[in-house]
């Protein structure tokens, strides 16, 4: 699919929803920019972190490590651990990102929690692919503009916790996940993943508890491969 046909298939509702998500990301980006500046990270590095790493959690982590006087190795290992979930995301989303190599190389960079969840909430096919590119590229633009703004505003940025954006993200993720939780196996896996990740949180460094959540797959069961929504014959009635 070339860029023009991609543009034509943009659904107005998808655009509005992706903009809402990107706007919330911009606010977090502002606080990242301000925090990074306060931690003494030079402006070119703050921008480079935002543009080249483009993974919020790890960006906050390395800046926090720097602010606390931690070692570069701690920052690097911690950041990569936090981003390890991007590999299974890529495995699940490879076919959605693109068919040709250039599209895959470019699209991989906008593979984030939000674009994965946003795309998976849409029907498979062109609409899902468009939703991925739409939410991912809007998130990229808004996140980086936010970071630049926060960096420039610096100490003038107020504590953004008062806006409650930290609640908006888990709520948005769950809203986007609801359609994929329709299957009983997905619900079991989701519950197991949440429980395991929460139990692991006090004991493991940031990033690992979410990976522990993958163990929720042990309750996936065999599953009906081709027809996940198929009812067993007993429920179908006479």
């Amino acid at each position: 699919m070339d860029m023009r046909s991609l543009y034509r298939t943009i659904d107005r509702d998808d655009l509005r929803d992706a903009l809402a998500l990107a706007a919330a990301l911009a606010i977090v980006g502002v606080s990242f920019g301000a925090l990074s500046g306060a931690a003494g990270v030079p402006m070119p590095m703050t921008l480079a972190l935002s543009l080249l790493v483009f993974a919020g959690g790890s960006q906050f982590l390395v800046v926090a490590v720097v602010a606390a006087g931690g070692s570069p190795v701690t920052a690097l290992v911690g950041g990569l651990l936090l981003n390890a979930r991007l590999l299974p995301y890529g495995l699940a989303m490879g076919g959605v990102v693109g068919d040709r190599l250039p599209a895959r190389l470019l699209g991989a960079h906008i593979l984030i929690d939000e674009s994965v969840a946003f795309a998976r909430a849409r029907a498979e096919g062109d609409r899902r692919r468009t939703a991925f590119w739409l939410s991912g590229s809007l998130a990229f633009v808004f996140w980086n503009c936010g970071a630049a703004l926060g960096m420039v505003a610096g100490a003038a940025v107020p504590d953004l916790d008062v806006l409650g954006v930290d609640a908006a993200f888990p709520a948005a993720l769950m809203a986007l996940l609801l359609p994929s939780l329709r299957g009983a196996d997905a619900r079991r896996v989701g519950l197991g993943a949440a429980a395991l990740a929460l139990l692991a949180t006090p004991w493991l460094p940031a990033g690992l508890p979410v990976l522990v959540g993958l163990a929720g797959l042990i309750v996936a069961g065999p599953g009906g491969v081709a027809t996940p929504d198929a009812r067993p014959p007993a429920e179908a009635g006479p």
Partner: protein
Amino acid sequence: MSWPTLLALAAGTYLLRITGVLLRGRVAVPARVQRYLDLGATALLVALAATAALTQDGGFAGWARPAGVAIGVLAAWRRVPFVAVVVLAAATTAGLRWAGVP
């Protein structure tokens, strides 16, 4: 923060992203495996949402945030439009914090 650290993090993160995407393009994935990959993504995203909703720095995040998330999820479940879900969750948490709830 040094440039080598920053560039290593950027390269490592991109490598994590591109590895999955390219592997999926090269290898024909049987339906069974595809189901586990899809469920795996669901597991990670739900685990992320749960930990982000309830925890902060390895401890409990306080009541304001999970309360906002709960209102948002309830709204989403009742098919309230996505934009309203995002705003409701943030507004609930912001309101509770304004009222002094941590």
